[in-house]
């Protein structure tokens, strides 16, 4: 449970917050162990994975590109916002970069809260905002040979503007 407090281009580690960009498979057990806390009554972990089929298109793999130092800062800002809105005792975010095969996790959001309602709400908030705000882009490699950058449905929010969530 004791980790050095670090902030660099790929991670933030404080006592209550752990954010990492990783190039290997996301370790779910490690995230759950980080979240365990005697003040917590409920943990919620969301794990985003790659669907093989989107309509008729078969995805062979995804790859993620990232503006790393800003992504880490933005995820930290979102986590701190969640910690201010809900009484979270811990939160962690993992995002994988590079190539991700189908069914493997590309993102993990984990929160620990005294009660379950808060855990669900904060976890949902974090994944929704991360998908809007974190400067990370996904490229799908389809079975028919196409390589396609996935474009988000809406641009990220600017500071001070309504977030529309």
């Amino acid at each position, binding site marked *: 449970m004791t980790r050095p407090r670090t902030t660099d281009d790929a991670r933030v580690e404080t006592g209550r917050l752990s954010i990492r960009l990783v190039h290997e498979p996301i370790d779910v057990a490690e995230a759950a162990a980080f979240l365990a806390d005697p003040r917590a009554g409920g943990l919620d972990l969301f794990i*985003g994975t790659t669907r093989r089929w989107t309509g008729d298109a078969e995805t062979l793999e995804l790859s*993620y*590109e*990232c*503006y790393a*130092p*800003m*992504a880490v*800062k*933005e995820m930290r800002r979102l986590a701190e916002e969640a910690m201010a809105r809900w009484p979270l005792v811990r939160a962690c975010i993992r*995002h994988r970069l590079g190539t991700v095969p189908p069914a493997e996790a*590309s*993102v993990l959001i984990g929160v620990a809260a005294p009660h379950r309602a808060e855990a669900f709400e904060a976890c949902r908030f974090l*994944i929704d905002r*991360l*998908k*809007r*705000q*974190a*400067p*990370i*882009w*996904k*490229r799908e490699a389809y079975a028919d040979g196409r390589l396609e*950058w*996935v*474009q*988000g*449905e*809406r*641009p*990220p*929010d*600017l*500071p001070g503007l309504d977030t529309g969530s």
Partner: protein
Amino acid sequence: MNDETTNGALRVRVLVFSILREKMGCDALTVALDAPATGADLLDRLERDHPALRAFRPVVRLAVNQTYAPETTALAEGDEVALITPVSGG
């Protein structure tokens, strides 16, 4: 692209990602602008040199020194400005 600093000019470092990187054929560039200059001035200038940017202009957001910032933001010498098309992480 103008790499010379003239009197009353400022230079910013521009970062480009994903589809826009591919369309513009460039992932980083240094741009010199007449001071004072805003994010919008930078985008106008980039659009002139890289017409591929035009189609993305309505959905591009700027990040100045790794934080989202409106196009009205005044730029300063040495700023790192990223062009952020709609993101698709997660």
